[in-house]
């Protein structure tokens, strides 16, 4: 009973928070900064405490998995279709959900001061609590459909938080780019979910990954099927975790306020792709080709992030690429089947990177304090002599890194622009056809033009 209540609180508390914040905005009763921050922090704490109690009870009773079944949201028994609200608390989801709640708690406390009296304070907290709900639902989802629900919420809130300073064009354009990549990644996820649904007859992760608890579970589908589904899920994970070729959105996400940057490319959102791969780990191991693809993708992204990160000139971008480097190593670990190592790596990296992100705005102050304490200037002495000889390869590498591997240019010029141009051509064609048929409008336009000419000449 206690476990049931705790598990319920972990999920229901953030959902209630979203409803409360959303309805307050919709119905027009304005929550004060104080009450909003207090409610958010209390609910996050409540949820985190519930998750910790659940973990403690599971450890005490030697239970490695607890399933919270809230019944079937949609049930069409004749068609064998159901949409269950099942949440899975196991050795993977509990550490990740506790991490999410702790970091969200810290970041909400930080944001309360950072955005004090900002006109978008309430808006920030609305997006923030939607993000929190998305993270919690994705972490503890027991079915692939529930996981998709959380996944979508994280995507939307991330894009809107990147575009938080919405009176400027740059944040908005970057928010749209993040959203575009997320939408296509979500499409791959949805399709993978449906294929899995077909192959296993349901969306339950327990059904797909076998009855044993994580990480001992084993997938029940064939290697060839695992390869197809796994590749789709890899696309979804690559989009969310900014792996190559989708890495371009990560530095662009820095347009958002610091607290949101901390949760995206510092801590949680960027690890969500890796978490998805960890969750379906047994399926990945069904197909060696898939495993090697994951390792290769992780390796390429690591090389890319390492190279590009070295030439960044602002702290947030440097931290973003450092984050990406670690995430790609985590992806490689998952490819090698080192699931516990990957989980520990996620937790450690997310915590450390959040701290760095939150301290980023006061980096110079921290540096000066360090210099004051050690008693001398720690700056590197500038010399007029070049540190190394400039070879063509070095120049190319430098340009490649400065242009962030030309990834955005490739996606824009090879995919987005041709696609848009095709449909702009169709649009022009449709307009011309309608104009051709609209005789009366043409006559009227001609009459207006002749009148204008007459007036101008007179």
């Amino acid at each position, binding site marked *: 009973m206690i476990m049931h209540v705790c598990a319920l609180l972990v999920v229901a508390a953030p959902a209630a928070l979203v409803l409360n914040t959303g309805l307050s*905005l*919709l*119905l*027009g009763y304005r929550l004060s900064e104080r009450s909003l921050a207090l409610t958010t922090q209390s609910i996050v704490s409540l949820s985190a405490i519930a998750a910790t109690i659940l973990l403690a009870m599971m450890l005490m009773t030697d239970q490695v998995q607890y399933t919270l079944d809230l019944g*079937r*949201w*949609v*049930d*069409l028994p*004749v*068609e064998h*279709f159901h*949409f269950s609200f099942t949440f899975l608390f196991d050795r993977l989801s509990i550490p990740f959900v506790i991490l999410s709640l702790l970091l969200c708690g810290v970041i909400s406390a930080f944001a309360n001061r950072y955005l004090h009296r900002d*006109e978008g304070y309430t808006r920030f907290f609305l997006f923030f609590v939607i993000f929190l709900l998305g993270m919690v639902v994705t972490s503890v989802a027991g079915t692939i*459909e529930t996981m998709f*629900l959380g996944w*979508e*919420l994280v995507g*939307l809130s991330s*894009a809107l938080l990147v*575009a938080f300073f*919405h*009176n*400027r*064009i740059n944040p*908005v*354009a970057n*928010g*749209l780019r993040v*959203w*575009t990549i997320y*939408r*296509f990644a*979500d*499409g791959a996820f*949805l*399709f993978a979910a*449906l*294929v899995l*649904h*077909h192959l296993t007859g349901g969306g339950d992760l327990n059904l797909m990954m076998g009855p044993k608890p994580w990480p001992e579970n084993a997938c029940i589908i064939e290697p060839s099927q695992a390869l197809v589904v796994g590749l789709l899920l890899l696309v979804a994970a690559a989009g969310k975790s900014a792996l190559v070729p989708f890495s371009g959105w990560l530095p662009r996400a820095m347009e958002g306020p610091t607290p949101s940057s901390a949760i995206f490319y510092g801590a949680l959102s960027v690890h969500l792709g890796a978490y998805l791969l960890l969750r379906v780990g047994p399926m990945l191991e069904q197909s060696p080709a898939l495993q090697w693809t994951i390792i290769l993708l992780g390796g390429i992204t690591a090389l890319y992030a390492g190279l590009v990160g070295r030439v960044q000139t602002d702290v947030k971008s440097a931290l973003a690429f450092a984050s990406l480097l670690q995430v790609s190593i985590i992806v490689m670990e998952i490819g090698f089947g080192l699931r516990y190592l990957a989980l520990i790596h996620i937790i450690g990296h997310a915590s450390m990177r959040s701290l760095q992100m939150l301290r980023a705005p006061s980096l110079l102050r921290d540096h000066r304090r360090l210099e004051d304490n050690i008693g001398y200037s720690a700056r590197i002495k500038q010399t007029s002599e070049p540190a190394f000889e400039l070879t063509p390869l070095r120049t190319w590498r430098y340009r490649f890194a400065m242009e962030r591997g030309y990834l955005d240019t490739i996606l824009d010029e090879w995919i987005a622009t041709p*696609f*848009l141009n*095709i*449909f*702009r051509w*169709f*649009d022009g064609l*449709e307009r011309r*056809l*309608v104009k051709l*048929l*609209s*005789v*009366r*409008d*043409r006559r*009227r336009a001609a009459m207006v033009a002749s009148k204008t000419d007459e007036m101008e000449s007179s």
Partner: protein
Amino acid sequence: MNTQLHLPWLELSIACPVVAAILCWRLKNENAARSIALISCLFTLVLTLGEWFDFKSLGAFSARDRSSIVFLVFGTEYFVIDELTAPLLSKVALLFGLTIAATMQSKAGRFSVVRTLLAEAIILAVLSCSSPMLLCLLLALSTILPWHEMRLRGHDTSVFSICMSLHLGLMVVGTMLLWLGHDRPLLSNIAASLLVLSAMFRAGIFPGHFWIVDLFEKCTFGTAILYVAPMTGAYFIMRLVFPVVPIWALHGIAVLSLLTALYAAAMALVQIEARRFFAYLFISQSSLVLAGLELANPIGMTGALCIWLEIGLSLGGLALTLRAAEARIGRISLEQYHGLFDQMPHLGSLFLFTGLASIGFPGGLSFVGMELLVEGTVEVYPLVGTIIVLATAINGVALLRAYFRIFTGSRHVATVSIAARPAERVVTITVSLLILAVGIWPSGAIRSRYHATESLLEHREGARTVTSTKEEAINVTQP
């Protein structure tokens, strides 16, 4: 079909807007006319809700009015309510009421209350009509009002006239051939093909989609929304085309509808005018509904019926938001950023919420509906299902692009407040709460749509069995 409702709900709900239109006809005072229209819409909504609950209490597949005047005069049941139309009637009544309520006083001169009330009566009659001939007549009548408005505004009506003439002509010929050739398979097949073509024009399936974009450009936004949002084309398909057309033809239209959905989604992405963007978004989403309906499998059809129910409300809400923004700053170009959010946060939030709900985002009925639709499509055509996923992904990008262009990117400076008026706030809250309520507890709506699907499939099976028996009989008699 002897099941009778406890009151003549259907006829009352159709008569109510007609009476209100007559009352408003000669009124010079626009405010008084608007008040009468609002009261009428409220009554109509109550009546449609009454007929829905009454019908539910009967537990039948379809029912007709008690003490029906039409039945007494003509001796035939022309108006019936069934599982398919019961919620649609209330949705239409609500949409008309919300549109009139959200109309700004400054736009009262352009947006005719009388025409709107007549349109409401005709669309309610279309959705209640069971007779093919009367349905043809009502569909023809419904085209006159927007056509008349375009003429009054001095616009060219050629595109609308061509498409609607093709639709009506094919529909009339098809229905007559179907009636004449009930024992001649060749004639029946020709009739079915003509009806399919007619449906393509009415429902806006490529290449019959031109009129929708043209209508949005040339009519008032309110009239255009109210003409397309009830999706009478889909109803026409379910009533006249679905029962008689062979499965291969239905699947053919389903694939064409899916391609239209993808094409329209991509077109929505490149539009530089808000109205055209909305028109293509609507075409894309309604094509998905049609694709699901024509799959003729229970899961896909249930999903399509759910989306049909949802997009009327969510795309209606989205259109009302755009209309409210247009009423303040004129026609909206998507080439520049307008930055309206700070001035009208309520409308900005509703734009985003309703738009996301319409494309199957969590929080609306379409979320589950879309999943059912994809599942149903994958069952029939495994690879074609990817088109739905692609179309919704592109629609999502187009929607957020439009949101950013209209509500963000700069700061709109206005000398007077352009925030949402109380009536608009009521509309936004009503739409949002309804979408949320059905989205959070979708099981009731899905069960009801599943029952409707089962009944439609049974009806189709019955009709097809009769046709194939006749075909066999003719084959036997013709050596």
